[in-house]
């Protein structure tokens, strides 16, 4: 159970551009205001470095999977924003941790885990469709570099995980595209609808389509709960598979 937990956190970590929440949050083109800090247990630690720059990292998993993200706001108007995001991940320590004999061995220990990094480069554009409705789209190219080719038998054949890890296999690149709509239904109710495509052109089983809906309820200025689902249709080495997962999120905010 512990291992699954780590994996899911890691999934969020690697693909944080996938998370579309509400205005000016992690998934959009906007950056945090200067000196502003946003921190969560499982969300990245974000820091507004300047009016147009933001750094983030995931603090909990940093020691298992060192990571850092830099977002630069290139253009901002009253109703839209365009930014570029670069993310760097070093998954080797985490993969070595789960490559073991016995319980917790997600990857067979008979394979060597090489030194690997991946760099994700994303173009993000957000615009206000109408009052309290924000649309965000992104396109991303991920590249990976390693000191040795990783054995393709080390893949983790799970939804959300398999296709995102394809960046480390088969010519070491991965494309992803997505869009989201974030908006408010009422003062206390909001929603987020998104769709993403992960595509590794050089792999055989190379795509994953994901779609999710979240409805959020603002209990107070600080606490929000969200419920929804995530649907995934993807092509795996063992065939195509559909999964639908419930989502229940807890949000905490502060000034």
């Amino acid at each position, binding site marked *: 159970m512990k291992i699954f937990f780590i994996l899911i956190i890691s999934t969020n970590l690697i693909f944080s551009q996938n998370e579309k929440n509400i205005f000016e949050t992690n998934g959009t083109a906007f950056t945090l205001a200067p000196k502003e800090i946003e921190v969560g247990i499982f969300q990245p630690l974000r820091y507004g470095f300047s009016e147009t720059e933001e750094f983030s990292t995931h603090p909990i998993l940093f020691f298992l999977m060192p990571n850092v993200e830099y977002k630069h706001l290139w253009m901002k108007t009253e109703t839209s924003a365009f930014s570029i995001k670069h993310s760097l991940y070093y998954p080797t320590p985490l993969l070595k941790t789960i490559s073991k*004999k016995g319980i*917790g061995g997600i990857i067979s220990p008979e394979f060597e885990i090489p030194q690997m990094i991946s760099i994700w480069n994303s173009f993000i554009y957000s615009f206000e469709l109408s009052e309290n409705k924000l649309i965000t789209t992104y396109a991303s190219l991920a590249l990976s570099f390693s000191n040795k080719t990783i054995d393709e038998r080390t893949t983790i054949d799970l939804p959300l995980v398999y296709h995102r890890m394809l960046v480390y296999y088969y010519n070491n690149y991965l494309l992803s595209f997505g869009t989201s709509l974030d908006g408010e239904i009422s003062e206390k109710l909001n929603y987020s609808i998104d769709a993403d495509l992960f595509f590794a052109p050089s792999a055989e089983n190379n795509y994953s389509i994901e779609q999710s809906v979240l409805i959020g309820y603002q209990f107070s200025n600080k606490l929000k709960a969200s419920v929804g689902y995530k649907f995934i249709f993807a092509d795996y080495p063992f065939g195509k598979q559909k999964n639908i997962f419930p989502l229940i999120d807890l949000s905490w905010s502060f000034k």
Partner: protein
Amino acid sequence: MKNKITLIYYLVLVSIFLFSCEIVTIFPDTQNAILYSRPTPILYSAKDTISIMTWNIRFGARRMKWFGDCCGDRVILSKNEIANGLRDVAEKIREINPDILILQEVDKNSKRTGYIDQVQFLLENTGMNYGAYGSMWQAQIVPSDGIGRIDVGNAILSKFPISEVVRIQLPLISNQDALTRFFYLRRNMLRAKIHIANHKDFVLINVHSDAFSTDGTKQKHINLFKQEIDNAVSNGFDVIAGGDLNTLPPQTSITDFCIKDKCNGDSHVHGVEDNENPNVSNDKIKEGSHYTPEKTWLNNLYLNYKSAISLEKYLANQSRYFTHSVGADTTLDRALDYLFTNTNWIAGSDTVRQDAKHISDHLPVVAKWKVAK
């Protein structure tokens, strides 16, 4: 909402996997098996006498030192190992040319064997027309030793039409911790009807009973196997039943293989119940090699039904009928695989194909049987 920062915790992505991903398949007591058929069946004329074969093919891993059963450390096969292993299995089946084949340890889209559907592969490469499959271990991921995705089970392949194929769940081992039990094997029997034109339909039963239990689960499996034969016979059917029973014929000379099967690091090897040394962890104990307490478990089967290899024949020359040796060791040392019927086998048609000892850790048992009209 302006000037507010919302921090979202994706706590329940964990529950995504735990509740809706079907990590491990829990099977009902009975269910229809997965059926296969050749798009254009090969035409076989009806026969009065058919050849039956049982074989635990060890998922085409040949004598590889797989971590789970022979002190090995291998888990995921290479492409060459997979291709060569399945090629050898298919070649041997074609050479023996049975009319009906019951198989154990057949992989279906498992990570360890390159996600190949081995039932489909063998159907297409052995001249068989119809197939059925019942999984004994199906999981999206087994988070242990890097096994990953697994689906392995029993299969039936036949030149003649099969119908009413049912997967029958066998009892689970009761003395494992909850987590191990959740991810562990769920063994089963397959029961099918075989139809040969102008002949009476008969029942075919394929079983792979437990190998490593220390709580009597294996005996329960064997008893249920016999009960399934009894039921079919009482319903008026002739029956062929067989598989890997994981125990020895009655009166077998050597019943304790604990020392022979011992791995480096094993401190005590007779099973949990015999662990007299409090300093020895139970997880270091090798189970499944001590058959002495099981000496009488097959008595009722031999008393009530005809074994393809009769007990007299076996006892007169045991080594000639050994069907198994552990892992990479090809010195055969025990008989674990059986064919039974309620009628009679064709005299002299029985054989254990010991020439296949490099292809799997179990050997094919083959015999001919007359189909009633």
